């Protein structure tokens, strides 16, 4: 009812106003008449009536508000007024909007990256019903892991699938499958082995042909069929519509193409799948392992579609029961299931990385926004004091303080909204470009990634919420402050000059400047430390020689090679490569230095029972000489040790020091899995062969004998051009096996893969630091120079009274610089804390870096000095008479 009356009132505004006028006039007339009856004079009676009535304007306003959609109409009025005020002051508006745009843009951008990486639901129909299931083991765990520790074995998957009551379906897939697509030009692909309900459960229809049916998964190796991705179909098979029914070769096994997935479907991980094969074909795809039958090997990721009406809690409870039953077969082991709505990067390890990094970055960009807010708040404060007269007049003719504060807030929200929209649009627009750039400039060998950073509802909501919050944060203090003023002085245009110094505005402004300086310091010093740390890590000498060395990497077991065939291949390849012109050395190694491959095992020290974790490499005797790793004690392997696969070890210097401090390591033994005692024959100098910027931990080498030939790669040293050598190696390999993919690169290229992430982080922190510095400089300059120019009158008076120019100058400078100095001190203290935290998270960062700690505060102080010195000098030189008239 009241709603309807208000709607009607909207159209009868004039009538209502007139009625209200008449109603109140009637009241006043009656009161006046009554007062006259009591014997008051005419004028006296009228004034008394008015007095008793109260502020007529305000009461009319209150009555109108009752009738109108108050908030709506007032807001609309405020908006129009605010827009006019902003348009009148384009300089202020531009700076404020720009500062806000920078702050919000950076935040929105980072958030949409995080959203794209880890928050978006999977791009499949009814994705909110799909949950991912992972497990974490506690207690006494003995388990084989392929990929990530939270994955399931095939039997476990079958168990969950058969016994749960909460899913309409449960799927499993192996996320880390690589296979070689045979043909004229063999190509290495990422793919997935999936349960046969994979596509049906996800609701994905094929663009061509069919997807898997249960029959395809009936028995191991029963149905060699494959679904190709639309991408692969287009780029590799020329979008051949007759592809269905043809055969392709994957890791040298024939697979029948039964369908092509819909365009845009790339599987369930950030790295796109090019093909999908039934999980039961695992052995055919990966002849080197047979995990389908292993009960205790985790290799499958599980996703379920919840039954309508089922809740996450029910899912957790139901699957928990099954996990408990499985645990009973493994005494001493307890399993916790991690179950949540499925996203990209959903597995626990990936999540913790994404969220850890995300939190640090969001905190950093949050600080940038804070600086931007302080800037705009200061601008608003300065503007509010310019509008003191207007505000004072409105207050004194009965405008309520809340009403005026609200109007000022509307104005600042308008600024925030303009800035937020501008910033968000800039962020979305530039992000697509940045993402494309980053993805196309990933180092050699990094997997291709799908990275959908386009904004969705989450991002818009985030950016809108942030915008509103920003508007309130930078608008509230100035609005409240501006409406709390001494009416008489302000209306007269006084209150500028001598009195301002003590006024609250100066205090608030100074606090804001101090805060800005402190926050900016934290950011800059953080960024500085980070960049210097990364620079150090990048330029660090890895401790071995890479020049002139070419690496040839290939995977024989997955291509169906047994040990025998592998030995023949390696022997022939090495002979051919050694005969290439310019090649003077050919060595073999299980993993190439800094090649992003790691081998680990456990060894037991004599007299101990507990295994220790080691990294290791399997190398030929000349490996150390080729890479310039000096053997500091003992010797490298002998030819006969290598030929006989002797269990002898070369350990690194720091390994020897840690295991046998103060003793001779040569001759000591370590026991391996097969209870064999392995004697140490040599100690090699420490290097950073497995992680750049980090000396290897416990590390040993064993000889690359005949038994190791199936899993070795080549390192080739040549005097000639690297390109010629690389081509020669490729030719040689192709002559032996045309279908084998051999990745031939310079060894130095391995460094790139290590440096790219550091470069991205360094670029990001550099940009953020520069942004913070820019905003803080603008802020400090603006506020300090404004503060000084406000005191020109005061300076004039002092000069007129005969003060010494230099003393006045000193006084002005001291007062202007004080908040900056205080901010800098707070900042340095904050930085000490932040750098402690950062150095825990980020490896290779020193926590006390003099350049960052001293340089940044000095720079900001310099800016504040200039900003105050120039107007102060002007003030001191100006004729006192002019200064006194200055406003």
């Amino acid at each position, binding site marked *: *009812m009241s709603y309807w009356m208000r709607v009607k009132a909207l159209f009868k505004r004039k009538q209502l106003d007139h*009625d209200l006028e008449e109603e109140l006039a*009637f*009241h006043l007339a009656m009161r006046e008449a009554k007062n006259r009856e009591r014997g008051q004079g005419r004028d006296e009676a009228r004034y008394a009536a008015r007095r008793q009535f*109260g502020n007529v304007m305000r009461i009319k306003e209150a*009555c109108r*508000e*009752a009738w109108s959609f108050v908030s709506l109409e007032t807001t609309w009025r405020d908006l129009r007024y605010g827009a006019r005020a902003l348009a009148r002051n384009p300089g202020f508006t531009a700076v404020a909007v720009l500062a806000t745009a920078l702050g919000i843009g950076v935040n929105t951008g980072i958030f949409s990256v995080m959203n794209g990486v880890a928050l978006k639901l999977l791009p499949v129909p009814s994705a909110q019903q799909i949950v991912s299931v992972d497990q974490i083991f506690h207690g006494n765990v003995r388990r084989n892991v392929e990929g990530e520790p939270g994955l399931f074995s095939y039997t476990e998957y079958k168990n969950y699938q058969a016994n749960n009551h909460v899913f309409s379906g449960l799927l499993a897939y192996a996320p880390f499958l690589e296979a070689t697509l045979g043909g004229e030009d063999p190509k290495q692909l990422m793919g997935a082995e999936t349960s046969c309900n994979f596509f049906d459960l996800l609701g994905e229809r094929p663009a061509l042909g069919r997807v898997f049916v249960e029959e395809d998964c009936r028995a191991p190796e029963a149905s060699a069929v494959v679904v190709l991705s639309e991408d692969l179909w287009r780029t590799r098979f020329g979008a051949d519509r007759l592809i269905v029914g043809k055969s392709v070769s994957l890791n040298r096994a024939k697979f029948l193409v039964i369908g092509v997935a819909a365009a845009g479907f790339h599987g369930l991980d950030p790295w796109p799948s090019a093909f999908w094969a039934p999980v039961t074909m695992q052995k055919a795809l990966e002849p080197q392992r047979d995990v389908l039958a292993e009960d205790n090997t985790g290799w499958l990721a599980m996703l379920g579609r919840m039954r309508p009406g089922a809740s996450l809690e029910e899912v957790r409870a139901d699957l928990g029961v099954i996990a408990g039953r499985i645990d009973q077969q493994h005494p001493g082991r307890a399993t916790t299931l991690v179950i949540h709505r499925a996203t990209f990067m959903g597995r626990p390890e990936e999540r913790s990385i994404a969220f850890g990094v995300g939190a640090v970055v969001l905190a950093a960009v949050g600080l940038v926004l804070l600086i931007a807010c302080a800037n705009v708040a200061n601008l608003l404060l300065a503007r509010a004091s310019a509008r003191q007269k207007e505000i004072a007049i409105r207050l004194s003719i009965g405008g309520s303080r809340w009403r005026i504060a609200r109007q000022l807030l509307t104005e600042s929200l308008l600024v925030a909204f303009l800035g937020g929209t501008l910033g968000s649009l800039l962020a979305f627009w530039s992000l697509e470009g940045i993402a494309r750039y980053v993805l196309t400039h990933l180092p050699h060998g990094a997997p291709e990634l799908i990275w959908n950073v386009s904004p969705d509802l989450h991002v818009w909501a985030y950016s809108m919420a942030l915008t509103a919050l920003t508007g309130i944060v930078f608008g509230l203090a100035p609005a409240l402050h501006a409406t709390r003023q001494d009416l008489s002085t302000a209306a007269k245009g006084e209150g500028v000059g001598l009195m301002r110094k003590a006024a609250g505005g100066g205090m608030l402004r100074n606090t804001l400047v101090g805060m800005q300086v402190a926050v900016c310091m934290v950011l800059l010093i953080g960024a500085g430390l980070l960049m210097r740390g990364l620079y150090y890590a990048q330029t660090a000498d890895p401790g071995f020689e890479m020049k002139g060395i070419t690496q040839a990497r290939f995977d024989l077991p997955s291509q169906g090679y047994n040990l025998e065939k592998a030995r023949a291949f390696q022997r022939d390849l090495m002979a051919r490569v050694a005969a290439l012109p310019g090649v003077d050395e050919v060595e073999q190694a299980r993993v190439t230095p800094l090649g992003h491959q790691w081998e680990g095992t456990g060894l037991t020290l004599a007299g101990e029972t507990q295994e220790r974790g080691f990294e290791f490499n399997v190398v030929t005797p000349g490996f150390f000489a080729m890479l310039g790793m000096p053997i500091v004690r003992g010797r490298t392997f002998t030819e006969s040790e290598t030929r006989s696969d002797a269990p002898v070890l070369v350990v690194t210097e720091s390994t020897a020091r840690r295991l046998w401090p103060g003793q001779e390591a040569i001759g000591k033994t370590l026991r391996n899995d097969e209870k064999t005692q392995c004697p140490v024959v040599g100690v090699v100098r420490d290097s950073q062969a497995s992680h750049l910027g980090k000396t290897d931990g416990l590390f040993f080498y064993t000889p690359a004998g005949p038994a190791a030939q199936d899993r070795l790669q080549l390192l080739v040293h040549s005097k000639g051009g690297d390109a010629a050598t690389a081509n020669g190696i490729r030719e040689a390999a192709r002559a032996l096996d045309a279908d084998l993919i051999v990745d031939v690169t310079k060894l130095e290229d391995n460094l790139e893969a290590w440096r790219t992430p550091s470069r991205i982080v360094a670029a990001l922190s550099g940009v953020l630091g520069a942004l913070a510095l820019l905003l803080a400089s603008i802020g400090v300059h603006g506020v300090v120079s404004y503060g000084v120019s406000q005191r020109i009158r005061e300076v004039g008076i002092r000069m007129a009274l005969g003060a010494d120019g230099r003393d006045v100058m000193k006084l002005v400078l001291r007062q202007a610089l004080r908040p900056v100095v205080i901010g800098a001190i707070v900042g340095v203290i904050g930085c000490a804390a932040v750098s402690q935290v950062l150095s825990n998270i980020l490896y290779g960062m020193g926590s006390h870096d003099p350049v960052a700690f001293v340089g940044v505060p000095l720079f900001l102080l310099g800016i504040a000095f200039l900003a105050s010195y120039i107007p102060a000098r002007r003030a001191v030189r100006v004729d006192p008479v002019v200064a006194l008239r200055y406003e």
Partner: protein
Amino acid sequence: MEKDGDLMQGTLDMLVLKALARGAKHGYGVAEWIHDSSNDVLHVEEGALYPALHRLELKGLLAAEWGTSENNRRAKYYSLTAVGRKKLAEETEYWRRMSGAIARVMQTA
């Protein structure tokens, strides 16, 4: 601004309803009634009455009609609607309980 006899908004609404319980009155009449029946203890800032009247009218507790006053001027007369009457009964009951309770509390030594 604060002095004895100031009224909280909810209380003012209740008094307005009470003032109209015996029949229609214009705004001035309501102010006078509150004055008189409180023996001049309650000073209603007279202007504040009008937003309250309009609010109550919008809520449908009061009905308003333009009529002619005792001195032959056009005046807006307010009267209770059925909803208003019910509301008044509730408020009266609530007030009775509250004031009784407060009185008991205050009398406790």
